């Protein structure tokens, strides 16, 4: 694993995610910045995928159950070569394929349309179950939000994944502690998520969602388990942009021109540090 390379990819994902939301004057920058490292690791280290053949039947699958964080997802897909990076600034525009939430019908590389919370994890279970039925070796990855796990459907899916021993399923829980109305602990506390997944029969690990070594270890741990794996990732919502970090207000707000410049300058500082 080339951590410097991954860090630079994650940084590009962050820059492009902010650029998308800025250009659209709409979208969700906070959660996008928080999952950039997980996406960088999955697409550039972990998953067997082929951007030239996005529908390859033996590919690993990815479902962004918290679909609103798609600016980072689209940036990762573009980085991987599924489509031209120039498309990114068309995000949320009427003539763009890059819909406000992931659309599998039109966006190369998107394995499942998501956006309505709680639903993506069920589709990921279906993909994993299909892999078992058809004796395929592919794995299925998903990112679910901590706020999202307030949806009952997440636990219906959790029950099923354990019941059918979907060991080919690895769900990252983006535990950034914030949701639209405030801290998850105040709005409707879903914690302790690790104990809950354990109680539902999952293999569980808790990691720093910005640490590639820990993400790598979690993926390895998941591959060696005979249960579905939940990786509870402690993350910083808005990671990398000073004024967006841990700020509820940046869940679904677009930066204005001035804020955008500050955001990019923050990220460029990090880029210099990585290159130094």
């Amino acid at each position, binding site marked *: 694993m080339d951590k410097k390379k991954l860090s630079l990819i994650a940084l590009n994902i962050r820059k492009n995610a902010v650029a998308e939301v800025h250009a659209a004057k709409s979208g969700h920058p906070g959660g996008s910045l928080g999952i950039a490292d997980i996406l960088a690791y999955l697409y550039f280290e972990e998953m067997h995928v082929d951007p030239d053949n996005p529908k390859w*039947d033996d590919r690993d699958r990815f*479902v962004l159950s918290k679909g609103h964080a798609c600016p980072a997802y689209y940036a990762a897909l573009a980085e991987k070569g599924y489509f031209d990076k120039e498309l990114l600034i068309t995000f949320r525009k009427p003539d763009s394929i890059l819909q406000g939430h992931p*659309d*599998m*019908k039109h966006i190369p590389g998107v*394995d*499942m*349309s998501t*956006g*309505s919370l*709680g*639903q*993506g*994890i*069920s*589709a*990921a*279970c*279906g*993909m*994993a*179950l*299909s*892999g078992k*039925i*058809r004796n395929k070796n592919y794995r299925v990855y998903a990112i679910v939000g901590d706020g999202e796990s307030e949806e*009952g*459907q997440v636990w*219906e*899916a959790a*029950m*099923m994944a354990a*019941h*059918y021993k979907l060991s080919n399923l690895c769900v990252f829980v983006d535990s950034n502690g914030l949701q639209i109305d405030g801290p998850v602990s105040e709005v409707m506390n879903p914690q302790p998520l690790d104990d809950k997944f354990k109680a539902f029969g999952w293999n569980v690990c808790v990691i720093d969602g910005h640490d590639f070594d820990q993400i790598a270890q979690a993926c390895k741990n998941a591959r060696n388990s005979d249960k579905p794996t939940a990786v509870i990732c402690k993350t910083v919502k808005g990671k990398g942009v000073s004024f967006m970090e841990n700020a509820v207000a940046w869940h679904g707000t677009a930066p204005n021109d001035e804020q955008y410049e500050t955001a990019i300058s923050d990220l460029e500082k990090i880029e210099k540090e990585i290159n130094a």
Partner: protein
Amino acid sequence: MSEKIATREAYGLALSEFGAKYKNLVVLDADLAAATKTGTFKKAFPDRFFDCGIAEANMIGVAAGLASTGLIPFASSFAMFAAGRAFEQIRNSVGYPHLNVKIGATHAGISVGEDGATHQCNEDIALMRTIPGMTVINPSDAVEARAAVEAAILHEGPCYLRFGRFAVPVINDKENYKFELGKGVVLREGNDVSIVATGLTVHLALEAADILSGRNISARVINIHTIKPLDKELIVKAAAETGAILTAEEHSIIGGLGSAVCEAVCEEKPVPVLRFGMNDEFGRSGSAAKLLEMYGFTAQNLASLAEKAMSLKK
């Protein structure tokens, strides 16, 4: 019209029959396999049957994931819990990505009987036909139910199939019977009025036409097994040629076949349309036979309503 079989029975048998022919067919249920009759498939193909437990929302999402990999999942529950509880999952995880999921919804309408209003879904056709790209099928008997299952398998895209709990007469056991998605069937020619029926009411419409014929009224009987896409051409033709329509369905008069026929007719060939079905009210407990009679699901009532529709002609 001799034998009586519930369309859910035919559904279970059809899944087993076609399970052998179509190897990528898989079946999901939500703890109702004995009632929806997917248990028949489970016996035949235990490796391709997955109980999702009492968790319909997840079941629909799982079906979407299975379909995204090329399998053809039939997800089954009662109409109330499939179309009702899981509406948004069907809309967003199946309809929006246009995934090849088949929803086999049984126990539709008041003929559920004793379980009462909480289990009698009279709203599913309305809900399902508003989803872009969704095919909505409501077979009238066991023969049509079997044919509908295969048609759904061969159709690429989401389908909602509606089946009943109550045994209904077999009316389509003709040698030349052919099922075509989206095509209505003229079961009886007539010029004075058209009775456009679906599901359990089709056999009643045929009996009503017999009664009307004794009153020197020639009623055309049309079976609409596919409510969406609707066979507008056939319905507009009936409007033009008979001048009045009675619709009949075991569903709310709001949003179902009656509404769909009104939409087609008022835009292309306005004629009087009377809608028969469940009025804007909930059902109740009772035997299916008794409830059907109480709520007017009789040939006599349809005959009177058809006459009323005729009387509205200018």
